[in-house]
């Protein structure tokens, strides 16, 4: 799950329209069957197309039992103060998250939201493109996961939906274990602009425990540079962690078996940015205030924990 500058469905459609093409048809004149590469690209694009209609309440309802089992038994999940989330209307839920490519806090919170408000309430989660193109992408899209972009989020908020965003994205989930109790949004402030543009309140969601599901060693910036991945694949990081079953897990591309760490999620009081910061708010100040409040909450949650994993 992430906030990113990912290209969006509409971007893709516009680009294709500019190229005179139709998203579903071969463009390079003449051939009746699209090439394998074309089909692959189309499939990739269709997975990134954030159609809000892909969310399927019946599917969510029918799959909550598995989510509940994982969240209850494996992660002993605990979500506090769900009643602080406005009962209806659009809202931007801003969370920290952890655990590499397997983010247990997302599982626990998504379950809590769907059971607390019911699957009838539209709820979308913004995710990194890599997540949506992974094998679990189709599953997540039915749960309401869409590619992270300002436009997709705005579209969902305009439909009165609740939107969950993790500004720290792939950077935050791979922070080293010794920074487990640190809010690290890497300076990304897109969520503030989004809330201001859409005129919706933000509700900070703070979770602890996810970074105890493996031993996270490094973001791997130097490693990515040494292997020239930044030039070849535009990958600026290559995270390394110690986890099951790989032991040394480079990149976490295939995920890992998370340790059964107790996950605690705290919902904080809603913040109306216009009301609190006036008609022309300073984005930097809001960023510092919101991350500061979340850090204080995370410090309190961390202080409650007696042992790693055990909680």
């Amino acid at each position, binding site marked *: 799950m992430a906030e990113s500058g990912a290209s969006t469905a509409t971007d893709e459609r516009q680009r294709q329209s500019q190229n005179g093409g139709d998203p579903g048809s071969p463009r390079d004149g003449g051939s009746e069957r699209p090439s394998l590469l074309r089909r692959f690209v189309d499939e990739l694009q269709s997975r990134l197309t954030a159609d809000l209609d892909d969310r399927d309440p019946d599917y969510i309802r029918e*799959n909550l039992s598995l989510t509940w089992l994982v969240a209850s038994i494996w992660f002993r999940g605990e979500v506090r103060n769900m009643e602080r989330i406005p009962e209806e209307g659009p809202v931007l839920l801003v969370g920290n998250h952890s655990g590499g490519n397997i983010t247990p806090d997302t599982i626990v919170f998504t*379950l809590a939201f769907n059971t607390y408000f019911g699957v009838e309430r539209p709820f979308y989660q913004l995710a990194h493109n890599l997540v949506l193109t992974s094998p679990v992408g189709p599953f997540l899209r039915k749960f309401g996961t869409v590619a992270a972009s300002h436009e997709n989020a705005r579209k969902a908020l305009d439909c009165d939906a609740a939107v969950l965003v993790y500004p720290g994205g792939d950077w935050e989930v791979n922070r080293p274990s010794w920074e487990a109790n640190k809010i690290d949004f890497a300076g990304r402030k897109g969520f503030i602009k989004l809330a201001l543009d859409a005129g919706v309140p933000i509700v900070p969601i703070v979770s602890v425990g996810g970074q105890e599901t493996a031993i996270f060693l490094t973001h791997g910036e130097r490693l990515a540079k040494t292997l020239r991945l930044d030039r070849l694949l535009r990958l600026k990081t290559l995270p390394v962690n110690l986890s099951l079953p790989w032991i040394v897990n480079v990149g976490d591309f295939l995920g890992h078996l998370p340790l059964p760490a107790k996950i605690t999620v705290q919902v904080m009081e809603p913040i109306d940015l216009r009301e609190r910061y006036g008609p022309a708010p300073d984005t930097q100040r809001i960023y510092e205030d919101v991350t500061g409040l979340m850090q204080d909450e995370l410090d309190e949650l961390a202080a409650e924990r007696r042992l790693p994993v055990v909680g």
Partner: protein
Amino acid sequence: MRIEQKVTVDAPRRLVWEYVTEPANYPVFIDGLTRWDVAGDRHKGLGARYRMLIRVGAADVGGLIEIVEWQPEGDMAWSSVTGVDQRGRWRLRELGDGRTRVTFRFAYGVAGGGFPALIAERVAAVSLNRRFRLSLINLKRAVEERGTEVATA
């Protein structure tokens, strides 16, 4: 999955009925209830609706329920409108000597079926059984205290 718990309350049936049909009492005596709101204009009786959630494992589960059976001082049953499929019933019977037999029944089903749903139903039953047992003890204590207050007044 079906759960049934029974308790004998040393108080007349009328008092027990008044207690279990008053929505304001539910957050007091139902263990683990995290949300209980009257939904709509009807406070109690046939057709009254409540939004309820009870903590089970990692989630607050429940939804909107509606009273579908109302036999004064006898039976009150409800059924789910949204959320987890559920059906519940209070069944009160006179035992004589001013005592009442209270039976609480709760049936629920996890949507989707399959192995995960089957396991989830059974795992949830452990927690729910414990919660309802405690709830009936709370109910017995509260109604008997009220009975004593009425008798001494």
